[in-house]
């Protein structure tokens, strides 16, 4: 059975990420009443209490709304990593290079970045880290992405002692506050992509960082690994599951039984996370198709076969439904000069 955590269940220690958001709001003269509205945490959470992801999301939404400033999500991101989660945070700080840092972040994501689940891929000299929604917060998604990307960029800059030449894609239109992205993230920004990702030349992955110590890193990893793991949110767990089973045409019934619940319960749970099974499946298939286009230089025929479609025409229609674009222009963009990924690997 697959372990997962519902958004309504208290699982995040209040003294960690929620305390940072609360402290930030308070330092900007916001009253607790405004920050804690509708969180059910009136009077402020006790320091050793647990907070549910839904409450933490509501706290973030309140902070963003009350401050109404385009830099809030970026400033919250600056504060977020390495965090104060004992062994897991320590393992991050001890990472001797970028590769170990990204692997550590992905390994302990439920503790370090509970709201968005990072996924790390590397191929052909490109390192890619993209963010998957862990608890279903569509309205907060752009702010969460800004926050988490800023957190990682700032952490790498601090540990590495220099600015990494990250490139960023966003699954959204160009925002009005693009200056915040330019300053807190970097000037290489691309909007209107199918996923929220950050890319960097893979040569940076193994470059040793100042203060790096393999041994300290191994010890910290071991210490963090020996603590009980925390389960990811339902959408994040489902994303992992679907990615693994994408070639077997996953169905709701089969997936629900693998998650140990009835299809009706599963559906209801997904609805509580503001999503549904088909939407999640389409998202995973979009990402896999893009990966095949990019990495394997696959054509429609091959992708259709890989994903279990009858023929290329069928796949083409479905892809249009998922993304609003036919595969043609996307493949051309990947291959051509506009290609975000291609530009990087060619660099």
């Amino acid at each position, binding site marked *: 059975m697959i372990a997962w955590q519902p958004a309504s269940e208290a699982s995040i220690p209040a003294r960690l990420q929620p305390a940072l958001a609360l402290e930030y709001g308070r330092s900007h003269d916001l009253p607790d009443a405004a920050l804690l509205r509708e969180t059910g945490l009136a009077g402020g959470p006790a320091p050793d209490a647990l907070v549910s992801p839904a409450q933490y999301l509501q706290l973030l939404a309140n902070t963003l709304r009350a401050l109404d400033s385009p*830099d809030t999500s970026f400033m919250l991101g600056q*504060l977020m990593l390495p965090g104060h989660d004992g062994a897991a945070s320590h393992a991050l700080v001890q990472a001797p290079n970028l590769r170990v840092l990204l692997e550590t972040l992905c390994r302990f994501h439920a503790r370090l970045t509970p709201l968005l689940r990072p996924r790390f891929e590397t191929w052909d000299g490109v390192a890619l880290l993209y963010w998957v929604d862990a608890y279903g917060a569509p309205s907060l998604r752009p702010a969460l992405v800004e926050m988490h990307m800023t957190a990682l960029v700032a952490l790498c800059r601090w540990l590495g002692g220099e600015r990494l030449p990250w490139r960023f894609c966003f699954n959204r239109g160009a925002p009005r506050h693009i200056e915040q992205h330019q300053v807190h993230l970097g*000037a290489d920004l691309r909007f209107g992509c199918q996923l929220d990702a950050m890319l960097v030349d893979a040569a940076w992955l193994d470059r040793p960082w100042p203060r790096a110590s393999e041994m300290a890193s191994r010890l910290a990893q071991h210490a963090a690994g020996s603590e009980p793991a925390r389960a990811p949110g339902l959408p994040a767990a489902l994303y992992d599951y679907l990615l693994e089973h994408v070639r077997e045409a996953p169905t709701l019934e089969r997936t629900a039984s693998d998650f140990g619940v009835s299809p009706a319960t599963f559906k209801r749970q997904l609805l509580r996370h503001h999503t549904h099974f088909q939407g999640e499946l389409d998202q995973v298939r979009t990402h896999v198709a893009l990966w095949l286009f990019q990495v394997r230089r696959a054509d429609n025929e091959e992708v259709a076969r890989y994903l279990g479609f009858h023929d290329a025409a069928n796949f083409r229609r479905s892809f249009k439904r998922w993304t609003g674009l036919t595969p043609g222009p996307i493949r051309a963009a990947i291959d051509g000069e506009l290609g975000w990924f291609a530009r990087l690997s060619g660099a």
Partner: protein
Amino acid sequence: MSCFDPVPPRHSFAVLSLRRHLAALPSADFLAWCSPMNVVARHLVLLVGLLVSFALLFVGAGVAIPLAEWDLVDIASEGGTALLAALWCLIVLCSRPDGRVTRLLAGGLACIMLGSWADCLDEAFDIDKSALWDNALEGLLPFGMLVLTAGMYYWRHEQANLSEHMRKRERLFRSHRPFDRITQLADAAYLREQLRRESGNGQPCALVLFDIDDFHRINREHGHAEGDRALQAVAHMLLLNLRNDDLLCRYAGDRFAVLMPGLTQPEGDSAARHLCHMVGTMRHHAGSRRVPLTLRHGCADAHGAPDALLAGLCRQMDAV
């Protein structure tokens, strides 16, 4: 500027000017001062209390005039004047920080309110003509007008001081956009607006971006409050060294932008190097520890589409 406290001589000039700015501008303190409803409620209760106590005074001292003899037009115009003056008084009290100008404006309006209200009550209650207090109350109306006029006079002075102070921050026209909370400078949206205006005319104009070196380290090692103080210090040092025509904005984070109308790109670059030098000679402290502040800059000709221009210059900054 008369409304500022005398500053003890031991403060450095940066701190001194910082205090001035904080005192002169509608700052966060002012917002905090204004936002709670209880301030509005308190003023409202005071004004209503004055109106009611006047009414009670007239009820007690006078003889009610029969309804049939009431001059409704007079009552409506005088009563209306009193109520509107009360509303204006309330608006002034709630939208300005306390101070001489605010007190004169609000006091004048309150006198006008009470004078008109006494006039209005006179229509409904017959008061012995020999009673001096009634005449004195009606005299509040012209007295209030005098006080209001004095308030307007000092307001004009205050406005002139503020305009002088704001010149390098807003340039050419004033729009009521919120200023950056920390530095009280205009933001990137305002800069883009100004760049659009600038791209229309044929005059040379330079655009410079400044980043603070290792700013993220100040935040990590000393906390965000110290980071904010460093931003304020740099903003003030830059302001002190700009020409009156220049516009200083906080672009985002630790990046500042200066628009220099009339300067070509090489001239702007040389001005920017001077600004970097000035900031570099500053002694900034976090607590008792000295924090060196240095800037790096990028300069471009400020013509062309603002978004592309800024994106290009930001790319240039990343490469520095």
